């Protein structure tokens, strides 16, 4: 059969709706194959695995909720990881979110040079966090010659150098500072793009309605229009903040001194890919999934458009 005839037969055999269904799924099929194979099915598998004991060699043994009980009752490192991850997420997340919003608002007010300032502000996001952590380690070096210790001693704020990367009470803060520095990017772009898209006529209407200054303008006019962008950014921020791993490992090592910068993903990596206790590690993954997914749903409610 010639190609033209095949096309004709294809067109005649179906209603328009059926044709759309078939064509739609044909176009989606490569994506769906990989999306289900590496994202959707794995989430379900992780939930099932978390109820088993599995070491990759023997068949998985069903153990019910034992893994979760062990995590919560018997695993001090997990509790540390959970606490650190929450502290990290609840400090670095909001700072990064509001910081990038303020930067986007300010850069958007510039008359000239927006692209240059955007690039310079976004650049840290473009760099491998493992690679750039080495520079930060040098800045945070624990002796008097470390750039930051040197500056603080010079200003008279501290007398003795601080052991930034081995002192367990400041270690997590170093990780937070470096993370905030690298993580402003994507949200910043989302906000900047959102601001540039706000229709200008709402500001004229606002002046008639008695909006007096730039701050009121932001609260009453700009923010409501930007809700969808705020939601997208909030979700990305949550996902990234709870998935903290690279920088923590690069700054603090694995395991970190006294587990001071141990995170959920570090715990997952430890049990999954060092000890090969796949069931137990899956329970950690499910906890991580549950926390970030629930926060995602919460933000969806907060930023719902009326």
């Amino acid at each position, binding site marked *: 059969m010639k190609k033209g005839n095949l096309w004709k037969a294809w067109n005649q055999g179906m209603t328009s709706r059926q044709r759309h*269904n078939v064509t*739609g799924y044909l*176009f*989606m099929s*490569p*994506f769906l194959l*990989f*999306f289900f*194979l*590496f994202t*959707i099915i*794995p*989430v379900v598998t*992780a939930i099932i695995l978390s109820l088993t004991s599995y070491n990759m060699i023997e068949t998985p043994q069903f153990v019910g909720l034992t893994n979760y009980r062990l995590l919560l009752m018997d695993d001090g490192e997990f509790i540390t990881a959970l606490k650190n991850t929450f502290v990290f997420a609840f400090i670095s997340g909001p700072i990064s979110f509001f910081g990038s919003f303020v930067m986007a608002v300010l850069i958007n*007010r*510039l008359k000239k*040079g927006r692209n240059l*300032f955007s690039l310079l*502000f976004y*650049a*840290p*996001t*473009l*760099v*491998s966090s*493992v690679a*750039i952590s*080495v*520079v*930060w*380690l040098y*800045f945070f070096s624990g002796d008097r010659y470390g750039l930051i210790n040197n500056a603080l001693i010079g200003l008279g704020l501290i007398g003795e150098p601080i052991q930034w990367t081995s002192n367990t009470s400041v270690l997590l803060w170093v990780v937070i500072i470096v993370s905030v*520095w690298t993580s402003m990017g994507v949200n910043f*772009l989302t906000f*900047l*793009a959102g601001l*540039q*898209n706000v229709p200008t006529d709402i500001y004229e209407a606002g002046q008639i309605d008695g909006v007096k200054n730039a701050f009121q303008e932001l609260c009453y006019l700009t923010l409501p229009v930007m*809700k969808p*962008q705020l*939601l997208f950014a909030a*979700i990305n921020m*949550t*996902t990234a903040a709870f998935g903290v*791993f*690279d920088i923590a*490992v*690069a700054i603090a*090592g694995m395991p970190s001194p006294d587990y001071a910068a141990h995170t959920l*993903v570090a715990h997952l990596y430890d049990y*999954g*890919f060092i000890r090969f206790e796949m069931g137990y*590690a899956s329970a950690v*993954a*499910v906890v991580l999934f549950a926390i*970030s*997914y629930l926060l*995602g749903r919460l933000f*969806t409610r907060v930023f719902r*458009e009326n």
Partner: protein
Amino acid sequence: MAAVKGRSVKIAGRHLFYFRFSQVLLYLFLTLLVIFTAMPLVYVATTAFKPLDELFIFPPRFFTSHPVLDNFNGLLVTLDNSSVPFSRYIFNSVLVSALVVLGTLVISTMAAYGLVKHQPVGSNVIFALILAALMFSPHVTQIPNYMVVEKLGLLDTYWALILPKVAVAFNMFLMKQFMEQLPNEYIEAARIDGACELQIFAKIVVPFVKPAIATLVVFSFVNTWNDYFTPLIFTSSGQMKTLPLAIQSIAGGAGASSLATAGTMAAATFVTMIPTVLIYTLMQSKVINTMSYSGIKG
């Protein structure tokens, strides 16, 4: 607002530019902030070109008076004599990133077209799943992914670094949002002219979504190029490592940073950051154009 242009600055009666105090303050403030955010990067760039004797000066200098290429030579020559040459890591990173970018572009553009412009039965469910997948980090699925990759016999191959990363919810979401801006009339007109689906896709859809394609190139490239977790899990031999892992081993492992390798490290970091910064700079305006449609209607 737009009417207020500020004070006109004149020389010999000719208008030069408008001067607004608030704008000047803004530029000053932003310049200070940007100096702070860009400082570590500038430090890497200058240190990479410092000669050996300047690396050890105290207090450290930001800029060098005699830029040299010694550190890059060190990176390529000395490390070439070790078991795995540094050029191999560059090759691995380039190959893997290029294939991931290509793969994710092709399948996301196709899928977004199928989803948005054909709206087959169940497209709501699929979109809901994509939205849900935005809400957790890829680490959640690493253990089952590892099992799949192991079963397929792909551990420690390039495929293990590529296949799990092509169908990314974030990329698909951005492409879908942009695809919605394509007017249906364009497609209908082509259909009436007798174009088949593949022609419509190639001649109308792809040219229209070019800004979104540019954006996915940036995000997908940056993400893969800098990815540390995937190669950490899926590769075991030195031959298969990518740049972030290689840099970590040059640094002498986590937590350690010795001055002896400072120059080589800076050169390695510099080499690593150039491609991402370059690609972003080239595509910046298209990225911002695409991100305008990134909002989620809650």
